[in-house]
């Protein structure tokens, strides 16, 4: 990349700053986030490395980040942000990266189930306003075609009186639909 002709607003770090308010250039690679991250060992790149790859402004690095498993394995526990001596909220940046990854259709194939769960969750509340577990699991199973998973816990929940069979509906359903419409929930990358 030839930096001489690049306006600072075109830098990815500026886009992140404008969208999330977080300045990735504040990161000085101490590695505390990666040390505290509960899922770092399952990630392809630990949190501090994701930040470094974004700092380089190199397109290959950016692509690797957006198609990484790391951004989907992040549970948003916020341990990274709470321990960061430079007060960089990596969790907020990760939310931004996930949205980007979906919009640019760069989601890692390994994250299919995680994304299917999030999408099924949002679909479920879009229709009923409240989470309807039976509907959520149904939608999730359709998306993942994993019909047998959890077959053993569901009857347990049902007999403990913890799995309502019918949805609890919000009365103002048009209000909820409107929220979804106006915030333009994108359902791209659909299977």
């Amino acid at each position, binding site marked *: 990349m030839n930096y001489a002709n690049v306006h600072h607003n075109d830098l990815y770090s500026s886009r992140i700053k404008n969208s999330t308010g977080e300045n990735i250039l504040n990161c000085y690679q101490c590695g505390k986030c990666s040390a505290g991250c*509960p*899922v770092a060992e*399952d990630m392809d790149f630990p949190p501090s490395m994701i930040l470094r790859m974004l700092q380089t402004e190199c397109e290959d690095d950016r692509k690797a980040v957006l198609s990484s498993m790391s951004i989907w*394995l992040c*549970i*948003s*526990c*916020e*341990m990274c*942000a*709470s321990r960061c001596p430079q007060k960089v*909220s990596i969790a907020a940046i990760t*939310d*931004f990266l*996930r*949205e980007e990854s*979906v919009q640019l259709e760069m989601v890692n194939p390994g994250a299919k*189930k*995680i994304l*299917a*769960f*999030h*999408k099924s*969750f*949002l679909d479920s*509340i879009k229709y009923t*306003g*409240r*989470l309807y*577990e039976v509907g959520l*699991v149904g939608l*999730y199973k359709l998306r993942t075609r994993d019909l047998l*998973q*959890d077959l053993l*816990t569901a009857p*347990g*929940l049902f007999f*403990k*009186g*913890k*799995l*309502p069979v019918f949805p*609890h509906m*919000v*009365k*103002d359903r048009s*209000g*909820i639909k*409107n*929220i*979804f419409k*106006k*915030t*333009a*929930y*994108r359902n791209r990358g659909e299977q």
Partner: protein
Amino acid sequence: MIRIGYYPGCSLPGTAREYDESVRALAPALGIELVEVPDWNCCGASAAHNLNHELSLALPARILSIAEREGLNEILVPCAACFNRLARTRADLLADAALCKRVTDSTGMPYTGKSIPVNILDVLSRISPDYISSKVTNPFDFNTASYYGCLLSRPKDIVQIERHEDPLVMEGLLESVGAHALDWAFKVECCGAGFSVSRTDIVGKLSAKIVNNAVNCGADAIIVACPMCHSNLDMRRPALEKAAKKKFEIPILYITQAIGLALGLDFKKLGLHRHMVKVNLRPDTLVPLAKEEAVSAMEAEV
């Protein structure tokens, strides 16, 4: 009687039914009146903030706006995940007027930030420990590991907890009802939260470390204040046992259940029969004489 708004969220009428039952049973016993936010909706949970930032603010904003309209200055949000989303939405909308305008346009409801979301620990810790102790009929005489998880302890300026790496608010509450709160290492570690369905393997691995440490420290029960922590440590017990390669019998109780038991509330009214891991803890009734002794012993300790 303290009058306070109540937002149960989606877990409490469903998979965390016993949490709802125990909050509703405990509140009147401690002089708290709960007023449910009418026609509440889902807060969007992790799914919304994973995929759409504006949506993750608009869904909680609708709840806060309704509470405001109803004149509720505070809303008790027992679910730690909902609480975290509501508290964050309030902070974000108050900090950014342009964002607030966009979000209120989506919800079609005005928002001023008058209603403040609070979690169960905020509400319980406001009550004097002496007052709680004076109500105890069956001291919760067990070794407890207080498990806060992520959503009650982080980010610290949003959830406003003291000592966010080593909080002690649950310990104080439990000791006021006769428990021995243990010092242990995993109180603010993550259990795997929303990966319960999509990555049960990760939930098993993380939750196994938590339960293992609590057991090694000698805990009789793990006390939680979050439906996701509860379901991962209780309902996902087979997954975590698989990861730990050993069996655990330790029950997971909501803080409201532990305090409720100590206050002599009914086992079933507190929903203790709904757990996947059987709860065998039945605190003994204090005989009047022993109660006086216990009080004087406590005073001597102080």
